[in-house]
Every structure is written in structure tokens, then in C-alpha cells.
């Protein structure tokens, strides 16, 4: 065990060296190949000067042919292996945030390439960055954006994003210019720096970077409010950055900005922001609408989500609108409707693909940052760089404090000093700033290299220093952490209840506040929008019911995955069952008698057959337990030892008898409206929670392909097969008394419950909470 981290380190070093050596090889390969080909030709010509026939090449190297995709794959592979490697070394990932480690790796790789004397590929090329690396991360963020806290704090977020960024840009730019102008006696390179380039630099450096924020904040798990404030700010400041950047870039050549330009700039900002959101929303609605019709082609459902979102991004970029805002809007708009329409597998696919892409993208970005740092071009100027770093920090702190003072006048739940500190400290800069700097034209901006150096220094400072220290600071300040609690049905009920209550109280008070408009929007949504965009009966499903179904399904899947089939599906490891909460009207009958009297043998056999084919783990045990006949089990080994088997069978029989009391699959009338859910196994599976009026449970199970455990989605309803129970049944979720289940190792329980709790934390499709599962569960 001790050797594993060391092995991991060794692996890392090997890989880094490999990477470093292969890439220059790739870069240098083309002359090699041609050289080789030339030498081949030479040899041939010598061999037979009249013959033009070459010996048939049995094995030849043609790197050039596959160079580009090969190098890309190599980079991606490196990124993924790095990520693996870091998690093999346990202590390291606790102390140093991943982003820092990745930058270091990038530095190493860049260094190696440089040592090999080769040209470092322009990895952080702006086109590559903005069109390929950034969108997955933003889409992932937008799709899983927790809408409710985002909307509730939208005003605060906008203030920070717009006013805060403007303040930062002007403060840093202006003061930098002032500093550059001092020391008139000692003419330095700084004196040729004009005001507008300074302001441009200020606007590049002042934007909080979503990638860096995500990377660092993901590991510190602070409470939802702070997370959404910093993260939301980093997303929404894109519009400001875009406008400022273009504005200053345009006019830096001219050298002056008039009032008219400023006015146009403001209009441009509105267009960029609102336009971006509109473009995103349109594509989102298109995606939602398309997903309505995908019930027959489930396989390509995720593709629609990805392609529509990407097109939203590209369309926005085409018009120089804010691509990030467009992507966020697209993801956020389409999610509730798409999730109501797509199958469960598609949902999982989308989730994991997004997480995968964004993870790889993020890793690559940080590595490239390291590589690009090594490459340069650099122009180190002590004054400029240090002043920039200091000004950035100061501007951020002043900005946050000042803005919070104003914002708190309008907030109900005020931001405390601790909150302000975290918001200020969490303002990390990242690769976007670098790419924007990279984009600058050297002719217009002769001091571009100096800018780049300063940008990289600031990035390094924020990511390393702030990134590393924020975790201990959070602990030190005892900032409220994220609640790990699972989302329970009670919380969901009361969240809804509260919504209505507060809306009602607002109505009684007579002013139309936040809740009133939210309620109006919800009703509009329910009445018109959902009907258009959601297929079939799901469009009428109230949120609470949707949530409940989702929870049920999670339980069912969990149940099947735990393999027991007899383990109780209730949320908690307790012995509480419906019996305990139903008012007692009848004396509880003995379980054994009930089973024997009610279920005819054929029914029993049918149950067993179904269980056998669907519950994989129990398959082995369910075989040949029929107490009347001894069925030979072709799958089981050791057919010889019948005695032991018989004993086992008797034991199992007892358990199965218990099971049969409680494990029934309710009937599924095919026309049950509320329950048609085509989530599992690509077939519209109708299952009903309506208890059957008759005592004998009718089981209609769709024996979907046995290799997919998901297909048993019907095991979420357990009823007591009791004749005497006249009144309506509730849910029967009782574990068989005594030893529960044929195979249930103790330690499995614990992990199962944890898994179950994680599952239950997954809210319904239109619920606002996002799925905060880490990429590596």
C-alpha cells in the first residue's frame, strides 16, 4: 500500500517524460520522414538507375498522416492520466488544489519540450480555447446550474458582475496608467503605455474566471449562497468583458474615446448581454421541443442537447454576443423540459458526458497554461507586474466591500463580513484572461508581451496562493459549508408549501413581490409552456409528483443494484414500516399464514420466475427452491452436493415466503395516465402506484433484457397481499423480519444506504437543485 503512491509518482514522471519526448518528436517528425524517404529513394536509385520501381514498403512510418489527431489524443491522454495520478496520491490532493498541480505539470511538459529544442505548439491558441476548450465547461455549469438560488440572488450577482467588473477594470487600468507615468526622470518602457491600452489591460485582468472558480470552489464545498454568488459573477461578467475588450481594442489605435463611444458601449453591453441570453433561450426551447419527439429514437437524445447548446454558443459568438451567457441560458432553459422527456439512460449519458468533457477540458486548460507560460513570449517588468498584482487585490477588496454595502440595503438576508471576505478572496483569474491577452495584436499593442507576463503572474498568484489558502481559511473562519443532506420528500413538500404560503401572505399584504411574480411565472409555465415542450402525460405532472416518482425510481434502481431484492427500499435503515404509521384497525395476521392462503402455487412460481430472471444476484439463490420439486440448476456449480443444497433451499424457502408477502409488483394497466414513464429500457413502461383492489396481486412485468438491471423499475411498490385489508393500501416497505434477505453482507448495507441517500438527494426534473455528484463518485 505504501508503494502505491510512490508508484503513482513514478508513473507520473514517466508519463511526463514520455509526453515531453513524443511531442517534440512529432513536431520534428516531418523533416525526418522526408529525410528517410529521400534516403530511400537514394538507395533505390543507386540500386537500379533505370528502374523507377521501389521495393515494396512492408513497414513505413508516416507520422505526418496522423499527426494532428495523434497529438490531440496524446494531450487528452496526458490530461486524463494526470487526473488519475493525482487521485492516487491521497495527501497531495488534499493540500494542493488540482489546478495548481496541473499547471505545474504543464510547466514541466513545456520545459521538456523547450529542452528538446523544439517549438512549443501554440496550445492556448485563442480559437482552440474559445471554441473547443471553454464550451464544455460552461455548458456543464449552465446545465446543472441551481436555478433557484441563482434567481433569488440574481440582483446581487448582477451587481457584482457588472458594476464590480467595471470598477475593477477602471481602477486597475487607471491607476496602472498613473503609476506608469510617474518617474519622469527615468524614462522607461512604461512611459509609452497609453491610457487606453492600460484600460484594456485592466478590463482583461479584472474578470473573474469561471474555470478557475469552478476548479477551486469544487474542492472546498462552501455553502450554496457563496458558491452561487462567486460562480454566477464569473459567468455573467463575460458580457462586460466582451464589450470592454472590444471597445478598448477598437479605440486604442485611435487613442481617444468620446462620449458617444461610451454611450454606444453601454448600448452594446445591453445588446451583448440580452442578445446572448435570447439566443441561448431560443436554442434551448428548440432543444426542448425536439426532445418531445424523441421517444422512438432514444439513442440520439443526448446528441440534441450537446449540439443545440454548442450551436447556441457559436451563434452568439458569430454576432460577437456573449457566448457564455448564451450557453448558460440554453442549458438552464432546456433542462427542465428535456429531462421530462428523455429516458433515464439518456439523462445519465448527458450527465456523464458533460462531466467528462468539462473535466478533461479543465485539465487541459490548466496544463496548457503551464505550457504557454514556459513558451512565453515574456517581457518581465518588475514595476508593472507587482503593481498589477497589488492593484488587482486591492480593487477586488474595495469593490466587494463597497458593493456589499449597497447591496445589503436591498437584500433581506444580508451578506456578512465573512461572506464578503470569501467573495473577495474567491475572485480568481484564469485562462480566459490569458487567451484574451494572447489575442491582442502586437502591432497595435507593442507592450503585449509585458501584458501577457503580467496576466500570467496574476493568474499564477490567484490560482496558487489564493487557491491553496482558501481551504484552510474557510476552515479557520468557520464559513458555513454546503449541506450534504439528501433532499427528502418532506423538504420537498415543505418547500412547495412555503412557496404557496409566502405567495399567499404577499397577496394578503397587498404588494407584488418576488414570490408573486415567481408564482405567476410558474403558472404560465404550467399552463402553456409545458404543454408545448413536454411530451405526453408528463406535461401535466405537478412538480411534487415528479419529484416523488424520481425518488421512487432511484429507490428501485438502488434496490436492484444492491442485488438483494429483499432489502427494504425505504430511505432509512430502520425497522419502521407502514404498519407503524397506519392506524391500527385490524390485528396483524401472521405473515406465513397469509402467504400460504393467498397465493396459489402457480402465482408463486410465476413470482419466482420473474424474480429469477430479473434480479441478477438473487438468481443463483432463487433456483431450485420450489419445495415440491427439485429443479436442477444448470448455473450453479457443484450439483453433486444435494444435501447442503436442500438445507439451503429450505432456508431460502422461508425467506422467499417472507418475500412473497411483501414483494409484489403491482399491476400496470396500460392506460394509466399519470405513470407512463418511458425512462427505462427504452420502452414506455407503465407502472402504477394504484394498489390493486383485489387481493391477489397481478404481476405484469416487462421482462426487459436481463443484462440491464435498470429494467426492473417496477420493484418500487410493495404491497401486503392481504385479503382483510379493506381500506386502501399505503406503501408497504417492510423488510422481512429476522434475517433479511438471502445475501446481505453487513458492510454492504452501509454503503448501500449511503448510495441510497445519494440517490434520494437527486431531486425531480423540475426541481431546482442540481445534481452535485462529483465526477468521480
Amino acid at each position, binding site marked *: 500500500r505504501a508503494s502505491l503512491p510512490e508508484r503513482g509518482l513514478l508513473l507520473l514522471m514517466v508519463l511526463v517524460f514520455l509526453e515531453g519526448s513524443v511531442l517534440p518528436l512529432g513536431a520534428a517528425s516531418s523533416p525526418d520522414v522526408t529525410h528517410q524517404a529521400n534516403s530511400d529513394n537514394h538507395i533505390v536509385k543507386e540500386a537500379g538507375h533505370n528502374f523507377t520501381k521501389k521495393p515494396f514498403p512492408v513497414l513505413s512510418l508516416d507520422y505526418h498522416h496522423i499527426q494532428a489527431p495523434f497529438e490531440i489524443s496524446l494531450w487528452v491522454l496526458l490530461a486524463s492520466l494526470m487526473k488519475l495520478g493525482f487521485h492516487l496520491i491521497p495527501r497531495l490532493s488534499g493540500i494542493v488544489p488540482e489546478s495548481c498541480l496541473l499547471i505545474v505539470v504543464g510547466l514541466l511538459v513545456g520545459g521538456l519540450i523547450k529542452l528538446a529544442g523544439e517549438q512549443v505548439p501554440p496550445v492556448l491558441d485563442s480559437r482552440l480555447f474559445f471554441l473547443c476548450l471553454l464550451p464544455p465547461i460552461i455548458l456543464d455549469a449552465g446545465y446543472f446550474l441551481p436555478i433557484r438560488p441563482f434567481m433569488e440572488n440574481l440582483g446581487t450577482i448582477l451587481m457584482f458582475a457588472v458594476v464590480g467588473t467595471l470598477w475593477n477594470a477602471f481602477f486597475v487600468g487607471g491607476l496602472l496608467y498613473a503609476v506608469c507615468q510617474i518617474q519622469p526622470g527615468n524614462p522607461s518602457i512604461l512611459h509609452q503605455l497609453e491610457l487606453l491600452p492600460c484600460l484594456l489591460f485592466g478590463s482583461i485582468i479584472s474578470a473573474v474566471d469561471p474555470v478557475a472558480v469552478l476548479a477551486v470552489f469544487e474542492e472546498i464545498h462552501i455553502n450554496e449562497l457563496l458558491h452561487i454568488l462567486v460562480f454566477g459573477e464569473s459567468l455573467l461578467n463575460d458580457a462586460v468583458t466582451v464589450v470592454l475588450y472590444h471597445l478598448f481594442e477598437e479605440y486604442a489605435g485611435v487613442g481617444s474615446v468620446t462620449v458617444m463611444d461610451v454611450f454606444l458601449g453601454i448600448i452594446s453591453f445591453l445588446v451583448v448581454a440580452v442578445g446572448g441570453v435570447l439566443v441561448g433561450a431560443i436554442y434551448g426551447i428548440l432543444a426542448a421541443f425536439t426532445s418531445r419527439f424523441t421517444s422512438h429514437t432514444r439513442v440520439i437524445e443526448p446528441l440534441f442537447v450537446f449540439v443545440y447548446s454548442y450551436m447556441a454558443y457559436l451563434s452568439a459568438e458569430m454576432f460577437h454576443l456573449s457566448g457564455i451567457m448564451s450557453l448558460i441560458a440554453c442549458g438552464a432553459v432546456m433542462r427542465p423540459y428535456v429531462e421530462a422527456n428523455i429516458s433515464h439512460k439518456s439523462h445519465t449519458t448527458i450527465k456523464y458526458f458533460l462531466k467528462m468533457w468539462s473535466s478533461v477540458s479543465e485539465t487541459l486548460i490548466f496544463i496548457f497554461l503551464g505550457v504557454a507560460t514556459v513558451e512565453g513570449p515574456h517581457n518581465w517588468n518588475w514595476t508593472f507586474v507587482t503593481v498589477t498584482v497589488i492593484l488587482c487585490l486591492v480593487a477586488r477588496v474595495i469593490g466587494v466591500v463597497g458593493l456589499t454595502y449597497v447591496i445589503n440595503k436591498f437584500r433581506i438576508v444580508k451578506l456578512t463580513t465573512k461572506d464578503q471576505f470569501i467573495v473577495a478572496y474567491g475572485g480568481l483569474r484564469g485562462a480566459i484572461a490569458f487567451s484574451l491577452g494572447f489575442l491582442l495584436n502586437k502591432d497595435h499593442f507593442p507592450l503585449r508581451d509585458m501584458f501577457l507576463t503580467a496576466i500570467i503572474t496574476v493568474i499564477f498568484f490567484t490560482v496558487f496562493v489564493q487557491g491553496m489558502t482558501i481551504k484552510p481559511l474557510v476552515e479557520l473562519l468557520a464559513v458555513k459549508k454546503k449541506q450534504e443532506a439528501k433532499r427528502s420528500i418532506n423538504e420537498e413538500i415543505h418547500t412547495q408549501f412555503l412557496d404557496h404560503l409566502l405567495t399567499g401572505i404577499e*397577496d394578503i399584504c*397587498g404588494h*407584488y413581490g418576488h414570490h408573486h411574480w415567481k408564482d405567476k411565472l410558474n403558472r404560465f409555465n404550467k399552463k402553456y409552456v409545458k404543454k408545448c415542450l413536454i411530451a405526453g402525460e408528463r406535461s401535466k405532472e405537478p412538480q411534487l409528483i415528479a419529484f416523488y416518482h424520481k425518488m421512487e425510481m432511484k429507490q428501485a434502481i438502488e434496490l436492484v443494484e444492491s442485488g438483494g431484492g429483499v432489502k427494504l427500499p425505504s430511505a432509512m435503515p430502520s425497522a419502521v414500516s407502514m404498519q407503524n404509521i397506519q392506524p391500527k384497525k385490524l390485528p396483524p395476521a401472521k405473515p406465513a399464514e397469509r402467504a400460504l392462503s393467498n397465493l396459489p402455487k402457480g402465482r408463486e412460481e410465476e413470482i419466482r420466475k420473474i424474480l429469477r430472471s430479473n434480479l441478477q444476484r438473487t438468481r443463483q439463490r432463487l433456483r431450485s427452491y420450489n419445495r415440491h420439486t427439485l429443479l436442477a440448476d444448470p448455473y450453479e456449480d457443484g450439483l453433486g452436493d444435494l444435501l447442503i443444497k436442500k438445507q439451503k433451499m429450505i432456508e431460502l424457502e422461508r425467506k422467499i415466503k417472507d418475500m412473497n408477502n411483501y414483494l409484489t409488483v403491482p399491476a400496470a394497466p396500460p392506460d394509466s395516465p399519470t405513470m407512463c414513464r418511458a425512462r427505462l429500457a427504452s420502452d414506455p413502461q407503465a407502472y402504477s402506484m394504484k394498489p390493486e383492489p383485489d387481493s391477489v396481486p397481478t404481476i405484469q412485468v416487462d421482462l426487459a433484457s436481463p443484462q440491464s438491471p435498470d429494467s426492473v423499475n417496477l420493484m418500487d411498490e410493495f404491497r401486503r397481499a392481504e385479503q382483510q385489508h379493506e381500506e386502501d393500501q399505503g406503501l408497504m416497505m417492510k423488510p422481512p423480519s429476522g434475517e433479511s434477505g438471502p445475501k446481505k453482507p453487513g458492510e454492504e448495507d452501509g454503503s448501500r444506504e449511503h448510495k441510497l441517500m445519494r440517490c434520494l438527494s437527486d431531486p425531480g426534473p423540475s426541481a431546482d437543485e442540481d445534481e452535485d455528484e462529483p465526477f468521480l463518485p
Partner: protein
Amino acid sequence: MGASQTRSEHKYQDLADKTGFSLEQITNLHKRFQQLSGNEDTLSRQNLDNIPALANNPIRNQIIEAFFDKRNQHQDEVGSFNEIGFEQFLMVMSHFRPPTLKTTEEEKEALRKEKLRFLFNMHDTDNDGTITLVEYRKVVEELLSKSGAIEQETAKAIADAAMLEVASTNVPDMAPDDFYEGITFEHFEQILKGLEMESRMHIRFLDVDTTTMRCGKSTS
């Protein structure tokens, strides 16, 4: 003018101390009270029923009932009024005040308890100190009542599952023959701990005069 003003101010000061509202907020709420009650001194259920905006609210009956519930007046009485005066109206409204920056942790706890108590009273209609299964079922039914034709069974199932969850969380080691009477206030507090009521259950009370419709600034 002066005399009556000081008199009303004095009266409001008393109320302000009791409920924690500011004088401006009380004045505004008084205006609204007058509006609702038709310039009478007391408000009846009918007056609240007539608010048009409430018509779409699925739990309007419970909300209206809460105003007339004696338990919400913090005077250890039970039962319900037929009509309420301004003071009672204000007392009920005071449950929806937000915490301020100066609220200490203990005060926040007390605030949360108070708000949860309000919710509890809304559910526990027969005032026996527990929310029984029947009562909880009613709650869920009412919640889903405006959502179109949903089946009774679904609401029941949801309520049952919720109840089961409460029981499992609070009394995990129940014997199979025990009966879980209902959700007590402590259990209620326990299961809703995660929602942080003191930060969620509040509305914005206006300090300035608004009798007209106003798009309230979002609570951020």
C-alpha cells in the same frame, strides 16, 4: 391632528415592541388592513376570501385559517377567532419577518422555532400536538389540489412516504407492533432542519408607502 397622531404613534409603538415591526411598516400594514376590512375595525374570513389574487393559491384555506388561529397569537390560547383585529393581524404577519444582520445565533434559533411552530399549527388542525397521517395526507392533497386531476392515491402515497421518512428519521428502532402516533413538534423541527426556515420563511415588508402595485425588488 397632533393629539391623535401621538396617540396612534403610541399605540403603534406598543405594537412595534411586541411584533418587531418598524413604525412605517405598521402604518403600511394598517392601511392594508383598512383596505381589506372595508374600513372596519375587524377582519373576517370573508374579507380575506375576497382577495382575488388568493384564488389561485392551493392552500388558501389553510392560510386564511392561520390568521384566525388563536395559537398563532402567542398567548397560549387555543381555538379560533371569528374576526380579528389589527393587533392579531400584525401578530400573524410578524412570523414572516426576516432576521437582520444584528440577529444573534440564539435569536435566529428562536426565530426558526417560531416560524416552524407557525407551520406546525397550520398542519395540526385538531390541535392535539401531533400531525397525524390523516392531517398530513390532507396537506399533500391540498398542495396538489390546483394541479389538475391527480389521483387520490398519489397524494396518499406521497404523504405516507413522507410520514414514513419522519418516523424512520426520528424513531429508527421501532418494533413492528409499535404505532407512530404522529409528527410531534420536535420531529417536525428535526426533519425541516435543513431548510433553514429563518432565512427562507419571510417576505419583504415595505417601509415606504405603497398602496399601488409595485414590482418588488427581488430579494437579493
